[in-house]
Structures are given as structure tokens and as C-alpha cells.
């Protein structure tokens, strides 16, 4: 089945130790998004790729970076995780065309920072 796969599902890291989360998709969607979702809060968009074009949200900290080496994969790098970065990270994809931009989500990667 075509889908959005996130790895790992659970990641534990130490304060300041870099971490990378991955997202892959078999939907051939041209847009990929990374959202941060803290407990009991709305998902917050960090950035997205429209094809190869990177779009950073204005309030996304520099600590968060992303790479999209090809259409299928997108990575979220957290260079120096702090305690406040503990959250669920959601990857989503969409095929941007005329009409509604419907997002397909992965199951998320839950990050714990010790």
C-alpha cells in the first residue's frame, strides 16, 4: 500500500546530542511537511519542501534543519536537542494541484530528550 513511513517511531536522545528522523513516501507526492506536536497542543508546521524548494516557517528555530535528497525521502535533523524539543514529529505529504491540498500523514516519531 502507498503510504508515509516514519523512522524511528520512538527516539531517545541526550540533551545536546544530534538526532535525525526520517520520512519516506511511496505516493510520489511533490510536497513533504514536518510538523512538531507537543502534548495537548496543535501540530505546528516547522518547514516543508515543495519539490526541491525548501520553505522554512519564520518561527522555526535554527536548531531544526531538513534535507530532501530525492522525491521519496525527507529528513529532520535536530542539531542540539533541548528538553523543550521533546515532542511527536509528524511527517506529511501531498500532491499540490488544483483543488484541496489533502495531506497524508505518517504515524509520527516520538522524541524523548534526557
Amino acid at each position, binding site marked *: 500500500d502507498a503510504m508515509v513511513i516514519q523512522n524511528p517511531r520512538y527516539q531517545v536522545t541526550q540533551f545536546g546530542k544530534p538526532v535525525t528522523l526520517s520520512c519516506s513516501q511511496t505516493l510520489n507526492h511533490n510536497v513533504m511537511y514536518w510538523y512538531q506536536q507537543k502534548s*495537548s497542543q496543535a501540530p505546528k*508546521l516547522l518547514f516543508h519542501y*515543495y519539490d526541491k524548494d525548501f520553505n522554512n516557517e519564520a518561527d522555526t528555530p535554527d536548531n531544526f534543519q531538513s534535507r530532501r535528497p530525492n522525491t521519496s525521502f525527507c529528513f529532520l535533523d535536530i542539531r542540539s536537542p533541548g528538553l523543550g524539543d521533546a515532542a511527536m514529529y509528524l511527517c506529511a505529504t501531498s500532491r499540490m494541484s488544483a483543488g484541496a491540498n489533502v*495531506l497524508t*500523514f505518517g*504515524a509520527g516519531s516520538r522524541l524523548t530528550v534526557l
Partner: protein
Amino acid sequence: AQTVTQSQPEMSVQEAETVTLSCTYDTSESDYYLFWYKQPPSRQMILVIRQEAYKQQNATENRFSVNFQKAAKSFSLKISDSQLGDAAMYFCAYERGADGLTFGKGTHLIIQP
């Protein structure tokens, strides 16, 4: 900037009954899309229903329907014949084109057997 407000952190309903989840939003745009997404515990977020702002007719998907009031900027979700599998967090969202979605804080729906 667009904002989405869900004023009900938690709702509870008896199985087989009907429940309505509220959502209001703020935008200066005239053409846009609105969505309701469902996020079951430890599972991925999935689309429940969507509404095009230029359509006056309310969207329906089986037991799920919306009450879209464009002038009031209100977009509520009605779930009929509630089932245990409907228990989840429900997020109202406003589409920002290719810039993705702006979400509300969510409503935790509890289904009482």
C-alpha cells in the same frame, strides 16, 4: 495570519448518540478549504472530511457531516451514531495552499459504552 480555535478540549458521548465538535477560524481570504482530521491514540492522523469554502452545501461522509457557516467563520463536525472506534483527538484545520495546514488545539472525544 489564519487562526483556528477549538473551544472544547474534551467531549464525551454515549455510544450510538450524536455529538458535535466546534471549530471557528479567522481568515481574510474568500476561497479556502477546511478539514477535520482524526488522530487515534498512537496512530496516524487521517482525514475525516473536507469543505470547500465556495460551496454552500455542507459536506457529508457517511456518519460524519459538517455545519459550515462562512459568514460566522464556523465549521463544526457532527458525528452520528457514535461508535467506540470514533474515540480519538479531532483536529480542525485550515488549508494554507502549498504551505500546509493550520490546526486547532484539538478536541479529545470519549465514547462511553
